[in-house]
Every structure is written in structure tokens, then in C-alpha cells.
């Protein structure tokens, strides 16, 4: 039983100049614990694919099943809770909350879920696992380097112990060395924690990490 299944999925954005087909008849199965790379030129529909996997977006037609649930019939709140409880997002721009310290950023998903006791311990544990030292815990994101910010972002994605890590160009804003370290970290989470990982990237060097690479061109899997 695949954990993510795309069944004849299309996504069409209606625009005044004409409809834009972002995804066309995509069939896809992702098994638990897989490390998948999604590659393709700009505008090939990579981000749309990732957004639908992350239940941020719903398909125009076809059916997507995530962790056994069909997302096309879900309300906005149900999609939000799906993101909160089952999915960890890692963005190219890190997207940490500037108002919150490192610890609070990672704690935030736990608080959304209503966890109070033991939250700080778990946060410290995760932060140490992604390689953030305790001296950085109370810093604001803006005081950290890009690589450190991405580590914190990964920690935040892992906070609610999600089944999937969805990463949108996680190394796009980092230099090669730092990018490699981040990819190593993501790969370790896949290997050691058994997280299912989907990474969207332009970088062909990433293929060595992946079990499988999906190539998208014009919204179609090739």
C-alpha cells in the first residue's frame, strides 16, 4: 500500500490568457520510507506536485490519497490538520518565523497540536539531532547562517514526527558545501528515522541520495 498515491491527477490554473496546465494525468505511487527526487525544468509542475502532496493544494481532477485519506473531499481545516500532523515542509527560503527564537520555531508545531508537557525536551532533542548547539537555541533566525536556518527548519518539520518530509529546493539558497551537509542530514532522517522524503531540485548531483527520480516535463511524468 503506497503512502502517497496520485491517480490520474491534473491541475489546471485558469488564467485570463488561457488555462495553464500545471499537472496532466499524473499517476504516481510513493512507498513508505522511499527517498524520491523530483526534477524538471522551471514551470514543469514540480512545485504544484509537491504542494498537492503536502495537502496545500487540491487537484482539479483525479484523486490523491495521502496516508490512506483522499484529499479532494477534505475541508480547509482538515487539509491544515493533515499538514500539521503528517507532513513536514522544508522550503528553499527556510521560512522560519522571525518573531520566534530557534527553540520557539521548532516548538510551534507542537503547540499547534496542543502539547504542553515535555515539549521543550523534545525540541532540544530534535535540534541537537539536526546539529544545532544549545548556545543557539535562544537566537532569532536572522542571527543564524543559512545552513543553520535550514537545519532549524528541518527540525521544525520533524517536530510533530510526520510521516513525510517534503523539501522544495532545500539547498537552493545554500553554497555547495552547506547544501551537501543539509542533503546528508535529510538522507539521514530518511535512513535512520524512516521518513518518506520527497525532494524537488534542479541539482543533478542530488540523484545519488535518491531511491528514485521522477522527471517532470510540461506537467507530465516522463
Amino acid at each position, binding site marked *: 500500500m503506497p503512502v502517497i498515491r496520485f491517480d490520474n491527477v491534473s491541475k489546471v490554473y485558469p488564467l485570463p490568457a488561457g488555462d495553464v496546465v500545471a499537472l496532466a494525468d499524473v499517476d504516481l505511487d510513493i512507498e513508505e520510507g522511499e527517498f524520491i527526487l523530483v526534477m524538471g525544468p522551471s514551470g514543469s509542475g514540480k512545485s504544484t506536485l509537491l504542494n498537492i502532496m503536502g495537502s496545500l493544494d487540491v487537484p482539479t481532477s483525479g484523486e490523491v490519497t495521502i496516508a490512506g485519506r483522499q484529499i479532494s473531499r477534505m475541508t480547509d481545516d482538515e487539509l*491544515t*490538520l493533515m*499538514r500539521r500532523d503528517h507532513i513536514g*515542509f522544508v522550503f528553499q527560503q527556510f*521560512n522560519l*518565523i522571525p*518573531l520566534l527564537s530557534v527553540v520557539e520555531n521548532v516548538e510551534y*508545531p507542537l*503547540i*499547534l497540536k496542543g502539547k504542553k508537557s515535555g515539549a521543550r525536551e523534545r525540541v532540544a532533542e530534535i535540534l541537537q539531532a539536526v546539529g544545532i548547539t544549545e548556545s543557539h537555541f535562544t537566537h532569532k533566525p536572522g542571527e543564524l547562517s543559512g545552513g543553520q536556518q535550514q537545519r532549524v527548519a528541518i527540525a521544525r518539520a520533524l517536530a510533530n514526527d510526520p510521516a513525510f518530509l517534503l523539501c522544495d529546493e532545500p539547498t537552493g539558497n545554500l553554497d555547495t558545501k552547506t547544501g551537501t551537509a543539509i542533503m546528508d542530514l535529510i538522507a539521514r532522517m530518511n535512513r535512520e528515522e524512516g521518513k518518506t522524503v520527497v525532494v524537488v531540485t534542479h541539482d543533478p548531483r542530488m540523484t545519488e541520495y535518491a531511491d528514485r527520480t521522477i522527471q517532470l516535463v510540461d506537467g507530465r511524468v516522463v
Partner: protein
Amino acid sequence: MTFLDLARRNIGRHWLRSTLAVIGIVIGVIAIASMGILGNSIGLMFDDMITDVGDTVVVYPATGSGTTAFTERQVTDIERAAGANRVIPLASTFDTISVGEAKSAAMIYAIPAGDIQFLLDKEAGTYPRDTGSGCMIGSRLAANSKETGLKLGARVKIGDETLRVTGVLAERGMGFDINPDYALIVPYRWYSNHYDRDEYDMVIVKVRDVKDIESVREAIEGRMNRREEVVNVMDTKAVLESVFEAADSITIFLMGIGAISLIVAGVSILNVMMMSVTERIKEIGVLRSIGTRRSEVMRMFIYEALILGVVGAAIGGVLSFGTGYLMMAVLVGRPDYLYNIKSILYIVFGMTFGIITSAASGLYPAWKAAQLNPIQALRHE
């Protein structure tokens, strides 16, 4: 760390902007509360007047009738109509008075000596006796006559007769019957002899129970105006009550002005909140993508507006107590009016109105933030 905490931190991120928005609310609350207090004090002033002179029925000769003054007989008729209530007939004139070499003009009220104590309070000395040639002077007249020497014990000359000042009246303020503060009070008998007159210009009825005012008035009118219009009866309660209604309208009008300033403050909060939402579109996208529900985003922004409102209302409440006190002391001269429960309620009302305005101003921006599409918000730069 909760949504409330996030809201608080975001306010701190733009403290100047937030302070300005809070100042708007503070001004609005002060405006509404102090205007309400001012209006309320005007009401309280009238209230005090009602209790002072609200038990009075004044009977005048009817204008346009043949009657210009009341005879002894007519006064007796009025006494019968008034039942057990005290009837005080009096006459008034305006004459030159001299103290030593100084001459001036003054209002003179002539009241039967035995009745003076039921109409006027004294501050010093004694009430004049019916047989003697004593008189009393009004408190303002006494205060204004320090140079001429018109004081307790002084001798006053009216025409060619000399009166001795036996007492000084307590200040009474403006009344609907007579204004004794600037006047000289003489026993009616002396007046009658001196001016060779035995008629009265008006009759004051002091009603024991304020509730009886209507019936006393009707009884006097019924008895005196049977055949033709002889008397006009004015009861001060009716007059004061219409003034009282006017005072209420003034309060509402003043508070309306205050409300406008609070609405302006609300618009400024709306503006601040819209800026806050627009600046944080990307942040909202992040929050939504990692699992924050719409209702939670909305809550965060409403909290933000509420914090501005509560802080503004709290500061405004404290300050309006101060402004209220100053206003009462300077404008009304009665700072104690501020401790009236209604005055305090106006402060509470102003604060509540301030908080509600702020929350209402935050609703639309909060709703707008909650409705953002997370994907588009994430892409926003």
C-alpha cells in the same frame, strides 16, 4: 508561547506604529468618558437644584389679568388651597440704600418676619423680628460690600429710616422664586409701613412632600382661577425636569462627539492592522503551510487589535479619571461629582467602547489574513 504571545510580539516589532494607534484609542476613550462625565455633572447640578428648590410652588398674579398684586384676602384663599403646606407671601421692590456716605441700589424683599426662616437659611446673626427695624443681607451683597461697610451689625438707610443688619443669609444660588443673594430682606410689617402698601407681589408655597406638588398646584389654580385667570402657578419641579431632559440631551450630544474621535481611532487601528497583514503575507503563508488553521490565524490578528484596544482603554481610563477631575474642578467647581457612580460608569463605558471599536477594527484585517491562499502567500515577497 501562544497566539496571544505572537500577537504581543508583533506589536512590539512596530512599537512606534502601535503606540500611535494606542494613542488614538486613548484620546477616544478620554473624549467619550470626559464628555459623559461633563454631561453627567450638568445633570447632577440640576439634580442638586431640584432638591434645593424643587419643593416650591410659586404663585404670581396672572399676566394680562386685572390683578397686579395679591391682597391679604387672596393670600388667605391661597393658604386654604395649599392645605397644610406653608404659604409665604412676599413683596419686592428696588430702592436706594445707603450705608454711611456710600449709596447704592439693591433689591429688597419683604417677607413676614416669622416666615423668613422657612424660606432662607442664615449664615450669621439672627432673623429680624416683626416689630423691630432689623433686616438681613444676602451673602453676595455682604461679600461685595466690604468697602462700604455693609455687614452684620451695620446700619442701612432706606429713604429716611434706618435699619440694622441683624443677620447674613447663606448663599442660595439662582432660584426660581427669588434671588436673595444680592438682596436685602426686610420684615413685611416694616415694608408695609415704610412704603404704605399692603399687597403682595408673589406667594411661595413650600410643599412638604415633593409628590404633592401637582395636587397643590391644581388646588390653587382651581380655587383662584374659578371665574377668571387671576394667578399663574409655576412649580419648579416641572421647570427643572424639562431642564433635566435638556441636560440628558447635552450628555448624549457630548458623548457623540467623543464617539466620533473613537471611531477615528478605530480607523487608525484598521489601518495599522491592514499594514500588519500586508507585511506578513509570507509569514502567514508559512504559518498556514505548517498547520495553522484559518481560525487560529484570525485569532492571532484579533488578539493584536485587542491588545492595542485594551492597552489604549486602560491608559485612557486612568487618564479620563484625571481629566474628569480637572474638568469638574475647573468647569463645574465640584470635583466630588466625579465620584458619582454614573461618572465612573461613563469611564467604564468609554473603555468598553474603546475595546469594542478596536476589536471590530481588527475583524476585517484578521479575516483577510485568514482567507489568504497559503501557496500564494508563501510565494509573496
